[in-house]
């Protein structure tokens, strides 16, 4: 965190000054480790074993928070007897189909919910159909359930209750197993377990902070699930100082999922309609919610219709389903990596790159560059001529002869953008807080904001089709697209925020801003571009622009910016009070039930129906918000409880299980099943995989490689390698190795090394450092090699350049969210510089031969029981 988010790390330092213990668990020793109370080096790709070990420690030593666990989680809920755990199936859950590499999750459900969840729910993943939505689509909620009637055993003794399933599932995640898989000695592991559990309970809370070191894995979603189980067992959710905090790579990554750049989402985590499934609005809504489930998602009709009213205005009427059929439909996986492969197959003609540099920043750089060379046109909006704009003339493949500029027909349009100081707008950070930034100076020359660029583009497209009567042009013709602009043509960003907030369209409040999404209606009388953001313009005031100093308000600081939903700073904060509505402790009091006033109150906006008493119990079968009991704090979950066990919503299992990375020099010590059996693989010549167990040849790539960032650079380097004051701080691409590996492979400090995988070989300067330690894993010494990924070859005018770490990585994805596994792979390293020109291709080819790599290597998801034979 200190390494990649130094500004945010000031708050960790402040917490430390107040007595917080800071533990850093990371393959790397970074600036964060330097500041932590202690650092735990771990093998990249082994965290589920580590987290599972903590879960076992909590359960075995009865360190969980009993009242919280029984009342606020699904620990007591009884699961379908057909569910079979990985312990019985040697690394698989029940319902796995080895042919498709996908699960039918019917058997994972709660007892009494054997029927399939809400109808019409199908998800497409790289040509495979699975029965459940997952991933980003669930960014704002748990998966839906047919109804909320569950069977519970609050003694937690029933063998099919979640609590007992959890115990059995993690029975073998012992400290010895943690050592064998993660390379963390038992005494170090015990120190983590003791610190975390001692600092949790009524009086204290612990927070987990993660970043892409957890997400960029073929099992990334289950890493976060592992932390979620720990936090729920320890009672650390919905309480001050608790939670699981995601750090983002850019200023508004949270914002770009809320109002999404993701292919499978509409604003506010509404799913994108699917071709052939969602023929009309009713079919679509039926797939989002079932009226029998609890919680606020049952109002999805109001959120959807208000969104359609925002986009299509008066053209959206009840008679035409409010323009629902003008929305595009998705027909499969249109994620970034699938799109790249589609380019390669000439299925994609044009591409926009806005502040993104896939030639350097995405896994398998060569695949990215080859794919872009198949485009007809490419628009690059960036501060400088990044490698993605110039790869066709100076990329590594031009040097090797794999790409010839004269063969490439891609027309590249390079357009200069305005920087954040040159335009107004909002950033949404990881606490879901919107913070407004005002324009400080006008952009230079032809630089334009994204807002102006897309507004102009929309205007021009609409002019072109103004006279069209074609049905396909109807969405564009009916789009509301009139934003006030200033003398430079820059649209008023606050007008966009007002549209996002939504307003009353009819009645006596007509024209007034909505103050909460609860006011949204499904009859077309309200608008709102993203229901969770409703309230950001309450009272006609831009609430996100508030900057009242912390010293002038309460410690929760509700008047700094604005957090969705409804300016709540901590989600699910009903859990900060006990079942009777009293704070768990005075020290950790946050919101509570005021008996005399008959309502919830406290330091934050209560995340609960304001006047629902803790003792309230709904009639069985009632759905929606009214179905929530007075002690159901997780109000967006379909049963009101925190999910230790996820009966639906995940494609790779209801509980995290340890699998080896897609590429690993080690055999899975926990199960026969080697890798995540649902991971997405792409067997192609341009995306070959190093062998892993049970294949032979893995000894050719005996080392673990991981990629990361340095403080001095920003991601793929467009905002740092072109700036002298940053470029000079980290001028050259380097690899970090331990003194032991250096001795073993003859690597010299400040010399050169070549790093090889099935994809390609790259060269880096060598940094030999004690900060990298070899780990003893399964009785074997495992060396890890660290590669910062900021450099690239080519580009116009970069002050520093170098080989790109992402070139050695392949593309294998987590099935839930389609994120690439770039934090753990296998590789070889040798001293000296890599061959150049066509010799580089031959050099890599020789490695492939030696390891016996074919198109199929590494792409068999299922490991047969005789895998070791």
């Amino acid at each position, binding site marked *: 965190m*200190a390494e990649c988010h130094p*500004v945010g790390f000031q708050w960790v*330092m402040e917490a430390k000054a107040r007595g917080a213990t800071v533990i850093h668990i990371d393959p790397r020793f970074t600036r964060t480790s330097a500041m932590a109370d*202690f650092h735990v080096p771990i093998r990249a790709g082994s965290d589920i074993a580590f987290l599972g070990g903590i879960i076992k420690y909590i359960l075995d030593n009865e360190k969980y928070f009993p009242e919280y666990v029984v009342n606020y989680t699904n620990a007591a809920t009884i699961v379908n007897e057909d569910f079979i755990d990985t312990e019985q199936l040697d690394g698989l859950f029940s319902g796995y189909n080895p042919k498709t590499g996908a699960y039918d999750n019917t058997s994972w459900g709660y007892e009494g919910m054997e029927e399939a969840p809400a109808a019409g729910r199908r998800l497409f993943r790289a040509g495979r159909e699975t029965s459940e939505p997952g991933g980003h689509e669930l960014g704002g909620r748990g998966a839906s359930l047919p109804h909320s009637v569950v069977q519970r055993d609050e003694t937690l003794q029933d063998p099919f209750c979640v609590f007992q399933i959890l115990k059995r599932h993690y029975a073998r995640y012992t400290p010895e197993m943690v050592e064998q898989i993660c390379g963390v000695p038992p005494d170090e592991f015990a120190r983590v377990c003791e610190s975390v559990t001692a600092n949790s309970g009524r009086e*204290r809370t612990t927070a987990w902070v993660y970043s892409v070191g957890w997400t960029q894995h073929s099992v990334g979603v289950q890493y976060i699930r592992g932390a979620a189980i720990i936090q729920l067992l320890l009672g650390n959710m919905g309480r001050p100082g608790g939670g699981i905090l995601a750090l983002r790579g850019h200023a508004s990554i949270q914002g770009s999922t809320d109002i999404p750049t993701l292919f499978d989402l509409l604003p506010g985590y509404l799913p994108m309609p699917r071709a052939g499934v969602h023929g009309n609005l009713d079919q679509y809504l039926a797939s989002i919610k079932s009226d029998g489930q609890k919680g606020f998602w049952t109002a999805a009709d109001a959120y959807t219709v208000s969104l359609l009213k925002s986009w299509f205005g008066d053209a959206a009427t009840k008679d035409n389903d409010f323009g629902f059929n003008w929305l595009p439909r998705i027909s499969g996986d249109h994620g970034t990596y699938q799109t790249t492969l589609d380019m390669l197959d000439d299925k994609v003609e044009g591409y926009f790159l806005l502040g993104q540099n896939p030639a350097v920043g995405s896994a398998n750089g060569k695949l990215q560059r080859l794919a872009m060379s198949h485009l007809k046109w490419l628009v690059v909006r960036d501060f400088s001529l990044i490698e993605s704009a110039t790869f066709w003339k100076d990329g590594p493949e031009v040097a090797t002869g794999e790409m010839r500029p004269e063969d490439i027909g891609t027309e590249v349009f390079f357009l200069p953008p305005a920087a954040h100081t040159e335009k107004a707008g909002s950033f949404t950070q990881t606490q879901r807080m919107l913070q407004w930034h005002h324009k400080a100076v006008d952009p230079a020359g032809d630089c334009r904001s994204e807002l102006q660029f897309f507004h102009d583009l929309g205007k021009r497209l609409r002019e072109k089709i103004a006279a069209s009567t074609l049905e396909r042009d109807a969405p564009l013709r009916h789009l509301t697209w009139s934003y006030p602009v200033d003398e430079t043509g820059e649209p008023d960003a606050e007008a966009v925020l007002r549209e996002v907030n939504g307003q009353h369209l009819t009645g006596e409040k007509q024209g007034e801003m909505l103050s909460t999404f609860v006011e949204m209606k499904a009859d077309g009388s309200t608008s709102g571009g993203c229901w969770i953001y409703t309230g950001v313009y309450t009272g006609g005031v831009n609430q996100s622009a508030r900057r009242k100093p912390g010293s002038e308000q309460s410690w929760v600081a509700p008047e700094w910016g604005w957090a969705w939903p409804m300016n709540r700073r901590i989600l699910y904060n009903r859990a900060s009070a006990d079942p009777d509505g009293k704070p768990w402790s005075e020290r950790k009091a946050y919101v509570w039930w005021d008996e005399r006033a008959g309502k919830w109150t406290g330091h934050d906006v209560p995340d609960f129906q304001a006047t629902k008493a803790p003792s309230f119990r709904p009639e069985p079968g009632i759905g929606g918000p009214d179905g929530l009991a007075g002690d159901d704090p997780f109000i967006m979950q379909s049963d009101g409880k925190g999910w230790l066990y996820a009966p639906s919503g995940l494609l790779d299992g209801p509980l995290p299980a340890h699998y080896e990375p897609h590429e690993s020099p080690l055999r899975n010590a926990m199960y026969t099943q080697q890798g995540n059996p649902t991971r997405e693989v792409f067997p192609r010549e341009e995306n070959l995989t190093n062998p892993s167990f049970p294949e032979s040849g893995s000894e050719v790539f005996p080392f673990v490689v991981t990629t990361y960032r340095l*403080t001095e650079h920003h991601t793929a380097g467009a905002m740092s390698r072109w700036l002298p004051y940053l470029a000079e701080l980290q001028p050259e691409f380097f690899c970090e190795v331990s003194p032991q590996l250096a001795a073993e492979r003859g690597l010299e400090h400040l010399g050169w090394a070549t790093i090889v995988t099935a994809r390609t070989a790259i060269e880096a300067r060598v940094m030999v450092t004690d900060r990298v330690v070899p780990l003893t894993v399964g009785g074997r010494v495992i060396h890890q090699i660290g590669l910062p990924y900021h450099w690239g070859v080519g580009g116009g005018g970069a002050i520093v350049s170098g080989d790109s770490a992402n070139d050695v990585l392949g593309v294998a994805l987590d099935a839930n969210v389609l994120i690439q596994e770039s934090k753990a792979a296998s590789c070889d390293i040798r001293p000296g510089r890599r061959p150049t020109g066509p010799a580089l291709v031959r050099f890599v080819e020789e490695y492939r031969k030696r390891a016996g790599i074919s198109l199929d290597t590494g792409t068999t998801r299922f490991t047969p029981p005789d895998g070791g034979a």
Partner: protein
Amino acid sequence: MRRESFAAADPALDTGWTEAPPRKGFFTDGSICIGCKACEVACKEWNGIPEDGLSMLGMSYDNTGALGASTWRHVAFIERRGPSRSGGFTALPMVTDISGNDHAAAVDTAMHWLMSSDVCKHCTNAACLDVCPTGSLMRTEFGTVVIQAEICNGCGYCVPACPFGVIERREGPADARNVGVAQKCTLCYDRLSEGMTPACAQACPTQSIQFGDLDELRDRAERRVAELHAHGVTDARLYGADPNDGIGGAGAFFLLLDEPEVYGLPPDPVVTTRDLPEMWRAAALAGAALLAGAAAAFLRSR
């Protein structure tokens, strides 16, 4: 120049300012520096200092190297496993952790990455200022030491005079400002004159670089060291905070977590001109003796 006490009470008044604000300085707390180098970048941005080298040095994560003409703030990284030189405890728990582990009693085997954030010390007795023949180096009303580039003739006397190796003559690039002229930290004299905080302190995200009235900073630093000692960080110590040291105390002083040598700092810095009056006296005496001898010889030969 004669001083009653070696440590000047107020260097600004001592140098002839008739009215001076309280002496300003930096307290750089190395125990909370996270090594982000925002200070280095902010300093270069504000002061228009040129980029000065694009090579990897292999000094841990530091590729700046040292303070010099084009590096006025510098953060180095010191990698060390185990206890400090003095055998003390360096790990940085601010309090005893609640699992009951007594860090002070523990054996320190951990990896440490010490952050060494360095800058011109703005000495109370500044040798650079003493040796400057043009008066380019001056004492400001804030008690800081500043080079007036337009007066400097580039003689370079100040370079070896500095006991810390802070000052350097800028050799290039040719199109940069002040090439051939001695350069160093001004404690952002221009910003101070406008009531602003120096750029490096302003940019520091963890308040590791604290700017303010020197007296107050010294008090604050003493409390910080006491706090760290109380929590078992026995290696914490101040460097340059003592008005009775060899430079009369620094205007910019530091909290270190190991011996000064580990940070590349002289353990007992002495103003290089301290002995100058004595030397001049000795030289005068020697000269007089020589003259007397010559006279005697002359007389004798008569």
